[in-house]
């Protein structure tokens, strides 16, 4: 059984790559806007269907559409953000709770809309990358790396690095970080909270939609797919520490590895149980996430 370990680790890392793409932008939007967007899975689903139809109409590889989909959904996010901001900036009641309810409702409506528009069948997005895999057997390692999943991991790392650069090295990022720390103080320093919030939400929706295309190539797509990804996004972000972006890749990789190793070496039917047990143990030890740096 030990000869399976390299493959188990590889599969786990590749799975982790998928979880990074699902959770990274979700974490960003929580860090800045303090909104847990329960519609994250639905943005992923909309992106997946957009990629599916663009591929169907043009016959081109879905990966070529990623920039188009980002721009399109950035626009959607930019326009919607003020609506969510309005709910969150109320002075009466509990704005945080209202935000949860609002996005939860959005998710249900989006799912219903998708069922009506896209139908109820499961689909798949074909891509040139879906065809092959890298076999490391000639190098003495019994490991196969599916090309499409490797592309997924590369995409996850690229998005992480770009976001890191944007947040740490640009003026926009400085504003975003200031806003995340203290909204009023950032405002006094000249950060336009409304516009920055719209940009951040736009980036989040855009990245989530691109992730949908990727997932459609690796797995399957359907109007109900969002729910599952929302749970994983939430899980990774909680494990990473709410709003702590740098923790996301590590939490995602941990989740992928636990899942992979458990599926191969233990009873696969208890995989999710193991994953959640680990989450609870880590939260008991460190309530602010894996690195103790969550909000």
């Amino acid at each position, binding site marked *: 059984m030990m*000869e*399976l370990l390299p*493959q*188990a680790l590889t*599969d*786990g890392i*590749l*799975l982790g790559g*998928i979880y990074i793409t699902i959770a990274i932008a979700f974490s960003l939007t929580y860090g800045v806007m303090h909104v847990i967007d329960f519609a994250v899975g639905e943005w992923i689903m909309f992106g997946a269907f957009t990629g599916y139809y663009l591929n169907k109409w043009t016959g081109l590889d879905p990966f070529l559409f990623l920039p188009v989909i980002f721009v399109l959904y950035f626009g959607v996010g930019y326009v919607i953000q003020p609506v969510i901001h309005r709910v969150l900036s109320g002075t009466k009641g509990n704005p945080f709770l209202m935000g949860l309810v609002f996005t939860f409702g959005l998710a249900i409506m989006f*799912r*219903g809309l998708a*069922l009506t528009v896209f139908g*109820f*069948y*499961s*689909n*798949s997005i*074909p891509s040139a990358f*879906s*065809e*092959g*895999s890298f*076999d490391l057997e000639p190098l003495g390692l*019994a490991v*196969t790396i*599916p090309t*499409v*999943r490797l592309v997924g991991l590369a995409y996850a790392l690229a998005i992480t690095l770009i976001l890191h650069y944007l947040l740490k090295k640009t003026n926009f990022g400085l504003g975003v970080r200031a806003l995340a720390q203290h909204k009023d103080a950032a405002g006094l320093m000249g950060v336009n909270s409304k516009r920055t919030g719209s940009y951040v939400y736009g980036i989040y929706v855009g990245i989530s939609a691109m992730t949908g295309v990727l997932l459609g190539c*690796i*797995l*399957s797509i*359907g*109007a*109900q*797919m969002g*729910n*599952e990804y929302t749970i994983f996004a939430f899980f990774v972000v909680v494990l990473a520490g709410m709003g702590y972006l740098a923790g996301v890749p590590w939490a995602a990789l941990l989740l992928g590895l636990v*899942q*992979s*190793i458990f*599926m*191969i070496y233990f*009873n*696969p*039917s208890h*995989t*999710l149980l193991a994953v959640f047990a680990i989450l609870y143990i880590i939260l008991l030890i460190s309530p602010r996430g894996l690195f103790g740096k969550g909000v």
Partner: protein
Amino acid sequence: MKFGFVRVLLLIAALFVAIPVHAEQRNFFKIGVITELSGDLVTGGNITKRGYDLWAQEVNAKGGIEIQGKKYPVKLVYADAQSNPAAGAAAAERLITQEKVDFILGPYSSGVTLAVAPVVDKYKIPMITGSAESPLIWKNKFKYTFGTIPPINFTGATSIKTLTEMKPAPKTIAIIGSNDAFSKATAEAYKTAAEKAKLKIVKFSIVPSGQDMTPLLSAVRSMKPDVIAFGGHDEEHVKFVKALKQIGYTPKALLMHCGITDKAFIDAVGKDGEQIFGTTCWTGTAKTKSKVLWPNAAAYAAASQKAFNNPGDYTQGGCSAAGIAFQTALQKIGAKPGMDEATRTKLITALEQIDVQTFYGRVKFATSGEFYHANVGLDPLTVQIQGGHVKTVGPKASVEAPAIYPMKEWKSR
């Protein structure tokens, strides 16, 4: 304040007391349909809906169900089970106590059916599911629940037997099932059949529903099984095929039960669907003859194509056949709309006695044993996707085309 509290308690208590179902006078049959119109099993739920709708549409086009010379149209009242057994049970209560339906056409999934069956037993309302296949439903011996699709332990063995007749015969098998009532039962049925056929089971795993199974399949690949058999639902089938292709393992035969007979599966996976085996008990080309509604399977497939741009699969057909079973039983006892409890009890007896040839094949419900109230009138078939079409490849008496075996490698397709 205290009085208000008591009133609330009384109200809650009143809600828990079984509300007697009164008969209602009307000139049409009011039929409740509980199925999964949202949630994870929305695809199957909508396929069952299509089956029930097509039956109702055909009956109403003929003026309704003829009872003692008078025709009574049918009206379907839908309730969404949300792919959730508890929601299904609540939906059943609502249809029975508020909508006062005459009888019920049942859910897509076995899990929801298992939750609804005790409710229909409690209110003594007959229900036929046109889809659910878990053996558990029939082992529980619910008096008011019937099913037109035979349970998976009745059908599953046929496919394993067909595979063992291939040359060179497969020797090893890996069996994986998703963790829901139907899929788990499918995997277990394949396991029992494989043990009987002396196939060596190299892996048997039940995985949580909807999971990415790539790591598990990597482990399976290292065991190089000749056959991989999977029990799951539509979305999981697509993921399963893609994961196998991504890790580059082509077994000699890939067997999947539910859903591969639907055109949508073939559309979703394209050429990767070729040569996949499945278990079913009906195809659009089955040689059936009937005097009720559609004369044969081809006529039904054509009607479905016209209505939904899809020829329909065995689940959809099973649902339309459920309608025909009720129709036949109602005619037999001359039951009119707005049935009282005594008539509904008679309807159960009539259902137990019917033996009718339909476009779907023979419908005859078992009245005892482990298949109690399941349809045992059908012959299970092994099918294979060939050239984008579902072809029957076993058992020998029903063969439409010889099976292609072993499967062509993913990379050379």
